[in-house]
């Protein structure tokens, strides 16, 4: 196999990985802090994509327009996160996990159909911002600039996310909430506000990744349930609630998917599911997670 071909596969895997990381990080954050698995995270991602497309229709398709659209979409989804958490989710914290799971599943159903109703079933697409429209030659291959942008953006967000969580006052509070919610409350912190904030931020990240995916993938109904399973796998591989676990989980997922095609043509999907099952069998808490 030609090295340039392998390089291409590698870069492809990395792009997938960084997208997944953007999505899965929010999912992992909510699980880590609130112990809730949010099926609707994929729906937030899908809404981000549709909203970005919508804003692009209203503004000039320039680079500035694209960034504006992405930001608006992310903020809009974040706001939706606040509403959902305050109106519904709160009353479910004390309930059994099954009910929390089903609530987020109800959101999947409702948001999915709402998107279908508003934007129809046709594939929609957004073109990359002009600045990032071209491609560059690397190791005898053509790599789209937009992919490179995502490959750089992923680690950047990982780094700033880590920084925010570990080096800021707010991050400290979030980590404290994760360790002992009741104690933090008794020290005077309004943990409910922290929960709302986390849920909204997680929705914001999902919305942002949805907006950013639009130049390379078309927007279709069903993109929500497809992505959520992948994001689960990433989070489970890395260890639920572990920040770096999610990052490396994404990288492993991307590469297994990318090279799995070469080894088992047609079975790349199978290879990632099998990978997840094997990891869970050997280390049920994931690569970077903590024993139960």
């Amino acid at each position: 196999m030609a090295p340039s071909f392998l390089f291409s596969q590698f870069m492809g895997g990395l792009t997938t990985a960084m997208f997944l990381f953007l999505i899965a990080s929010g999912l992992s954050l909510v699980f880590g802090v609130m112990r809730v698995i949010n099926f609707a995270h994929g729906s937030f991602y899908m809404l981000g994509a549709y909203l970005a497309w919508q804003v692009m229709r209203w503004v000039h398709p320039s680079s500035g327009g694209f960034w504006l659209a992405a930001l608006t979409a992310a903020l809009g989804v974040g706001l939706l996160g606040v509403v959902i958490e305050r109106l519904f989710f709160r009353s479910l914290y004390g309930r059994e996990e099954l009910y929390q799971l089903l609530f987020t599943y109800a959101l999947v159903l409702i948001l999915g159909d709402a998107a279908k109703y508003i934007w129809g079933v046709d594939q929609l697409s957004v073109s990359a911002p002009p600045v990032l429209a071209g491609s560059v030659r690397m190791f005898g291959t053509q790599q789209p600039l937009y992919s490179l942008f995502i490959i750089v953006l992923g680690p950047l967000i990982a780094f700033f996310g880590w920084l925010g969580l570990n080096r800021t006052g707010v991050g400290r509070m979030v980590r404290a909430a994760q360790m002992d919610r009741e104690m933090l409350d008794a020290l005077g912190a309004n943990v409910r506000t922290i929960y709302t904030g986390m849920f909204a931020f997680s929705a914001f990240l999902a919305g942002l990744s949805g907006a950013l995916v639009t130049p390379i993938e078309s927007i279709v109904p069903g993109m929500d349930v497809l992505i959520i399973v992948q994001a689960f796998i990433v989070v489970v591989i890395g260890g639920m609630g572990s920040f770096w676990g999610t990052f490396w989980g994404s990288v492993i997922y991307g590469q297994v998917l990318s090279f799995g095609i070469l080894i088992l043509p047609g079975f790349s999907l199978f290879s990632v599911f099998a990978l997840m099952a094997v990891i869970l069998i050997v280390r049920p808490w994931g690569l970077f997670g903590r024993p139960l």
Partner: protein
Amino acid sequence: MTALLDVQNIHSAYGLSRVLFGISLDIAAGECVCLLGRNGVGKTTTIRSVMGLLRPTSGRVVWKGADITGWAPHRVARAGIGFVPEDRRIFPELTVAENLAVGARAAHRPGRWTSEAVFGLFPVLQQLRDRRAGFLSGGEQQMLTIARTLMGNPELLLLDEPSEGLAPLVVEALLTQIGELKRQGLTILLAEQGVGFSLALADRVYVLEKGEMRHTGPAAELRDDPELRERLLAL
């Protein structure tokens, strides 16, 4: 003497299991009051009921004249009641300094207790400031728990079993430090089963038995009367 904290006839339960059967107590500003009794008699439950971590099924908790029964814990904390739990409950993966910072940020009550002031009281914590709290010894964790609560500048400190499971030498040190807090005028409600520890600190005691108040009076009475002490608390 107007009470800073006035607990009026509270009943509390965990689910169906009733733990408190009408507990009343009051604390004036500057006092150090001790709840004495063996484990399982309801000391912790009393403190949790004051703190809002458990809603009493009846009765009232009055703080500076305002009814705070059933308030969320963070509101109680911000009103000036600091809580030091029995099982320490430091944030194990945060460093000592981070634990303190969380304490300060959570309560939003600026005042004389800063990191420097806290390190003055517990010098050992200063040397350990960048160590993860989970790696501290039991005594160090206990000091950190108190220090973390002090960062919120409480007017009343609820101390639940501070001497529990600690080596005698550490207990002595802790006794001096809590004594220092008392000397500085902090109001303290202490729950203890160690008679020696509590009598060394307290002005007044309440003796609990099976969720009811068995005895109340000045600490000196118990200190000076071994017979009374035996009768109330003996083996």
